[in-house]
């Protein structure tokens, strides 16, 4: 499994959301289809998994964004890993993640 989530970006719209599964996993958001602005996890507290959370993002932020996701039954550790990789690559957390997401975050230096 690749450390980085490098799938192609998809436009976040209602058609895309309706086709998503309700599984657990992680997703990233972008406003230009290139820059990672947020990394979030979808765990068992979500009512409708990835579909529910990305539907909520769409409702709250509106169209015009991009997303990519990974279905993963260990969303918490995968989210931690993606956050650490992002910080290693860019020196900071994604702009739309709250600062508290960085509390207690470890350090990775991926190849």
């Amino acid at each position, binding site marked *: *499994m690749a*450390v980085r989530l490098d799938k192609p970006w998809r436009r976040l719209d209602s058609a895309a959301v309706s086709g998503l599964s309700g599984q657990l996993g992680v997703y990233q958001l972008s406003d230009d289809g290139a820059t990672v602005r947020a990394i979030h996890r979808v*765990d*068992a*507290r979500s009512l409708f998994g990835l579909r529910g959370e990305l539907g909520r993002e769409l409702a709250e932020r509106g169209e015009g964004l991009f997303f990519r996701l990974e279905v*993963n039954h*260990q969303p*918490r*550790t*995968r989210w*931690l*890993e993606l956050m*650490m990789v992002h910080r290693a690559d860019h020196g900071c957390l994604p702009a739309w993640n709250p600062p508290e997401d960085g509390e*207690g*975050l*470890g*350090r*990775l*230096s*991926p*190849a």
Partner: protein
Amino acid sequence: MDLSLTDEQKLIVDQVRRFVREEIVPLEDGLDPDADSLPPDDHERLAGRVAEMGLYGLDIPPEFGGPDVDIVTRTLLAIEMSQHRAGLYAPCYNVFGGAGLAQMFEANDDQKQRFLFPMLRGEKKTFFGLTEPSGGSDPARAIQTRAVRDGDDWVINGAKMFISGADRADFGLVFARTDPSKGRAGVTCFIVETDTPGFHVRRIVHTLRAARYATELQFADMRVPHANVLGEVNGGFAIANDRVSRQRIPYAATCIGVAVKAQELAVEYAGIRETFGDKLAHRQGIQWMVVENEIDIRQALWITLAAADKARRGEPFRTDSALAKIVATEASGRVVDRAMQIHGGYGVTKDLPFERWYREMRIRRIGEGPNEVQRHIVARDLFGSSLR
């Protein structure tokens, strides 16, 4: 062998049991199903409560300020402390404090000042780097990480696998081969600070476990001062090995605690749930599953307490702790599986703790030395020198 509890043990066990049920379990309703830590405020509050109980730093030897709990009592407490969702790998979310790396008590005075005391004060986090991509069950042969002396330093190259906590650690113990010709007598233990150039945490290794995730490490021309050798050069294997026999007893006990809780939930649910006009508890198929659970729990309990009692009396307990590890991990796995079955569809949801226990319990047959290796230890004891 008298395994009845003393009045003091009864008091402490009851105190911790109430603490888990009244303080820890209710908090889990508001946590992620796979959480391994509490919000900072809750952690601080509960660690304070534990300190008031005189039980903070349970595993710290009394000469270093620990509460002087003998290993039998420690085993009984481990059984209590794991009786909640995260209990297998994050008993009470670590509000009882940790002792960090037990091997660090072997440190010299300089190393104690730089590493041991900050670790005990909770100022420095640690990791234990033994297992490699080439294996962990047979470290004497599997260790391929090399350390070569260069003046006052050692230059280390290699990799470690399944290392918990390295991404957040300040330092850790790294076992490296310093004499390739000597097998287990050619391994040295180094104290490695994680800000050392050449130290890399390459990735998280995702596993069935929700708590205490593992990482993969790489060392590339990492220079470690000779002053950071723990113990003697080429004496690392003894340091690594010293930990494992004793560690197997609380490891077994933690599994038993989860099994006890799973059985409690199964009995309660079987007494409530009705199918085809009668309670599950009235079905012989369910009754027998519950009885099998009880047999598994009691066997594991007595074998584990017997091992702890031998350790407490200073007798050799390597075989006993291996037996405890085998029986407790396998029996507890069966108990969780049956309890899950009794709960039907709800048993496999994240609404209940079984699915997490089921996943994490599977690792216990592999962690701290696979059960096949434990059987080898017991066989070696039974057959004596003829097997060596």
